[in-house]
């Protein structure tokens, strides 16, 4: 059986890696994901694709735990994410077994980005069609938010978005992110939901929020909890509009 050793991701004459750029296209078509880093709380929000009537919505999970203290969301090809998450989960336990220490957020981000890069420079494979948002608290308590993309680059962010309409969401975050605003848990959650509402049909049916507080386990907000905050935001917007008239 012939081995697959021909490289698929190769340079174009003007220095582009088209496969990587096409992968980024796939990411741009995926459902939106947003991350907001507060002082003692980090929030991930994802757009919930409307599920078919007969489908069990609990099985469509876009916010995934990598370890007890690290969570990630993604935009792009769900199946590719599954493979990457699996590798990351094994790495978290393997590191913890050898070092007797939980992974830092940066370490696991670097690992995931490393895997994504490997798949742009190996024979017979294509890049992963996902960008990830990885959140967690380092062992010393510092909150972290990182993003990786199909090219294998990663960077730390105070707040970011990826997927469909991520530019709009990111611009909203740039305009509205303040350190005081996210110093409380409620503030960080509100900002995440507000930013998602810019591009997603409002309502808890279409938004899923995961909250990671320092020292606590991941909490995925119930639909009615999200509804309460959405109504709050809608009331504020209405009030602001009436004031300006």
């Amino acid at each position, binding site marked *: 059986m012939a081995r697959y050793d021909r490289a698929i991701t190769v340079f174009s004459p003007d220095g582009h890696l088209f496969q990587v750029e096409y992968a980024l296209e796939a990411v741009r078509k995926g459902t939106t994901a947003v991350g907001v880093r507060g002082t003692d709380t980090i929030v991930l929000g994802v757009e919930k694709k409307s599920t078919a009537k007969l489908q069990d919505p609990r099985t469509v999970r876009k916010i995934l735990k990598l370890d*007890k203290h690290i969570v990630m969301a993604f935009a792009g090809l769900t199946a590719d994410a599954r493979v990457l998450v699996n590798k990351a*989960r094994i790495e*978290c*336990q*393997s590191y*913890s077994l050898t070092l*007797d220490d939980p992974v830092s957020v940066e370490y696991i981000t670097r690992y995931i980005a490393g895997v994504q890069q490997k798949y742009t420079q190996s024979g017979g494979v294509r890049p992963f069609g996902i960008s990830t948002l990885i959140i967690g608290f380092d062992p010393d308590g510092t909150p972290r938010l990182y993003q990786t993309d199909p090219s294998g680059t990663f960077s730390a962010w105070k707040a970011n978005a990826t997927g469909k309409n991520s530019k709009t969401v990111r611009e909203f975050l740039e305009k509205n992110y303040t350190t005081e605003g996210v110093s409380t848990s409620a503030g960080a959650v509100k900002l995440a939901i507000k930013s998602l509402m810019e591009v997603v049909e409002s309502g808890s049916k279409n938004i899923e929020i995961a909250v990671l507080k320092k020292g606590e386990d991941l909490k995925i907000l119930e639909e009615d909890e999200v509804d309460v905050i959405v109504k709050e935001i809608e009331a504020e917007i209405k009030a602001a509009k009436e004031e300006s008239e």
Partner: protein
Amino acid sequence: FVRQQYSFTRKKSNHKQTMSDNLIGIVGQDYVILAADSAQARSIVLMKEDEDKIKVIDDHKAMAMSGPSGDRENFGEFIEKNIVLYELRQGGSLSTKAAAYYTRGELATALRSSPYQVNILFGGFDQHGPSLYFIDYLAAIQKLPFGCQGYAGYFLLSVLDRHYKENMTLEEGLQVLQICIDQLKTRFVLNTKDWVIKIITKDGIRLHQGSNSNE
């Protein structure tokens, strides 16, 4: 014609069971008590008297292990990380039986190449209530209402036969455990004065007595 005879041999010299690793497990109404003596000895020298031999695996599962500390810690951590990995992937909790059988499976796989010399009392609380599994270093497994590893069994299985009742309250269970510990103090030639005792209930695992370094 000659009939071939196969004989099974076990190298006796590999059997380096440590002398005084004693473990006791008791299942009650809504809890499992795991107790492990906390002495760590090398030959005639007591190296440490506050060793925690009960590895907590997750919120509702723990295993008390006996044997050489290298094998004990290595195997314990290996099992813990793999069970955590499985539960992260699965998005839920493994049943106690499944986790115990997984552990036994790993012992069995390693048995005929590089065996772990650990005896285990695996306790847990899941949707079926509290349960205790006895797993020995040859990878035999048995679900029991109460169990012992080490020399403790020689003295305490009969004591437990006498005093154990089904569905004991926590208070009664701890009384029975105290009878066991006192028996060893009276009749067992080696020092087992310090114990680490952990109690597993539906609310989690708590340290009842002794030092705790194995979370």
